């Protein structure tokens, strides 16, 4: 290898590294801008606020990363959050007064059972959608668009349109508690992200996710169980949405059918800002965490700067597009 060639290679590597770091660079730039405009932005309290605010849709965005990696999409997550939150609430309350009771004496159940109910509801919802995608080969966009209205309808039916609120302390700890200075939902988010990272980078299942997203036909020909992977991935995002629903209900001390509206787009935005391609096969959990933080920082910073609500909407849209454009620009340089 000549010196020129070696130089070229190291330059290419540097660009590739930059490409990976692009979302992080953008995030830091945003933080610096906000901090210089309003120093209170950097208060530890505010930073933990951002983390806590990000954590619930962050958990969902982690699941969404898997789905997008296999070229799928899930528009139903917001509805599943609402539905599973209501399932948790119903179990925690032991039923709904005047409509149906789950316990003989009208007393509620332990938070663990409530959490289990939420996660189970979410996972089953995901699994059903996964079946339609994998077995009926209906495009994921359609299945989950349908799922979005179906699960919202079920949520409305469960709660009869109204909220269910007022849970015990132990239930509330999962959304509002702290361990030291760190809010519990942040820890849950961190744990989910860490596990997902290990699964994606170090296990056969994780690599199969990338293979299916990169070339589903080739994956099938290589002996990868493509339907199985697809099913598992949708079950997984269902799991994440169920968990998110439980944490949200706990944090709000209330569950209702309109909860989680719009989470699908926020979660997808976090994944894509984090550098995962909508065409599948490339990206990962680390990027998603950064993408989720970026979204959180953006919303928090604009409020702290007292930007008018209408202008906020305009800026949020523009900055999200700019973030992804920046990412693509850097990645193109590395070609």
């Amino acid at each position, binding site marked *: 290898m000549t010196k020129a060639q070696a130089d070229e290679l190291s330059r290419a590597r540097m660009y590739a590294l930059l490409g990976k770091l692009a979302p992080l660079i953008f995030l830091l730039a945003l933080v610096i801008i906000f901090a210089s405009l*309003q120093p*209170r*932005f950097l*208060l530890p*309290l*505010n930073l933990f*606020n951002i983390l806590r*605010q990000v954590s*619930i849709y962050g958990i969902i965005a982690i699941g969404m990363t898997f789905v997008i990696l296999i070229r799928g999409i899930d528009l139903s997550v917001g509805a599943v959050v609402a539905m599973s939150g209501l399932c948790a609430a119903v179990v925690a309350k032991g039923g709904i007064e005047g409509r149906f009771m789950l316990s003989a004496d009208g007393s509620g159940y332990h938070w663990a059972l409530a959490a289990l109910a939420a996660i189970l509801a979410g996972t089953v919802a995901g699994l059903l959608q996964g079946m339609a995608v994998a077995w009926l080969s209906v495009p994921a966009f359609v299945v989950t668009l349908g799922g979005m209205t179906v699960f*919202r309808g079920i*949520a*409305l039916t469960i*709660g009869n*349109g*109204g*909220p269910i*609120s*007022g849970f015990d302390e132990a239930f509330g700890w999962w959304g*509002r508690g702290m361990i030291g200075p760190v809010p519990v939902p942040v820890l849950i988010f961190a744990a989910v992200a860490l596990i997902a990272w290990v699964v994606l980078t170090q296990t056969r299942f994780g690599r199969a996710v990338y293979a299916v997203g990169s070339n589903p036909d080739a994956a099938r020909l290589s002996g990868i169980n493509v339907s199985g992977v697809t099913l598992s991935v949708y079950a997984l995002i269902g799991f994440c949405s169920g968990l998110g629903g439980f944490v*949200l209900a706990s*944090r*709000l*001390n*209330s569950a*209702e*059918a*309109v*909860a989680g*509206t*719009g989470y699908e787009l926020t979660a997808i935005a976090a994944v894509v800002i984090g550098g995962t391609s909508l065409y599948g096969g490339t990206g990962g959990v680390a990027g998603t965490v950064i993408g989720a933080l970026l979204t959180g920082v953006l*919303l*928090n910073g604009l*409020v*702290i700067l*007292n930007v*008018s*609500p*209408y202008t*906020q*909407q305009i800026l949020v849209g523009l900055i999200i597009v700019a973030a992804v454009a920046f990412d693509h620009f850097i990645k193109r340089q590395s070609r």
Partner: protein
Amino acid sequence: AEPKGKDAEVTILVSPLTFAFPHFVFLTDELKDEANKLGGVTVVVADGQLSAPKQIADIEAAIVQGVDGIILAPVEADALAPVVQQAIDAGIAVVTVDRPVNGVPDVLANVAADNFKGAEAQGEAVVKAFPDGATIVNLQGIPGDKTANDRNGGAHKVLDAAGEKYVFVAEQAGNFSRDKGLEVTENILTGLAEVPQVIIAANDDMALGAAQAVDARGLKGKVAIYGYDGSEDALKAVKSGDLAATIDQFPGLQGRTAVSTLVAFIREGTRPESAEVLVAPVAITADNLDQAERVGQIGE
């Protein structure tokens, strides 16, 4: 916290439900106007976007920012309680407007006209106009939305209690939007063998959409349509007879009262006589049009 003094600079956060509904746009505008009159009051506005987590995030940001007071129309009474408590613990005075939060006794005041009560007024107006009973179409708001639920519940409470002669022949969701209200009404009118006597809608937009559907079918004047909110367009329609009535919750008054109460407390430590400052909703018909808050906007 100690009173800041008579002419102290005051910063407050205003977080209404959503700016997609003119009701809250008007409330906020009037509130800002009052703040201007008071002088030295900086109003920071955040759009709740009908999302409790969004509103919580906005309030958390405001606490960090160190505002002196918060005026809040909570998306969800229970969900917002913890963050409101947090704000109060941080020495920030909180006034709720339009609707209360649950279980935070230290809230300075709740300046509100209950949606449930307003819908009762809507129902009573129907009973008054149709003492012998009526066939009723009910246009509900966004399914699951708190406002939609309250307004639906209030109307049902009165009309169900008034006897079996009040029959709900169709109940559908119009999502608070004019086009959906129009579409759903068109469909309902076709689906019903007999023209209903009354249409009640959970907001003015849907009522105005329904009025158009009724008009297009040549039924103008044969169906009494009841809106809700007292918006400019609705008042015009009441005046012209397209709507039978609309419910005014006096959002402007609520906004003004909220901000003056809050600022008085921050500057001078005066508390209102009661923590509940209730504004009674009024059904506005052609007869009492002058009572409507926004009547000045519709011209002659």
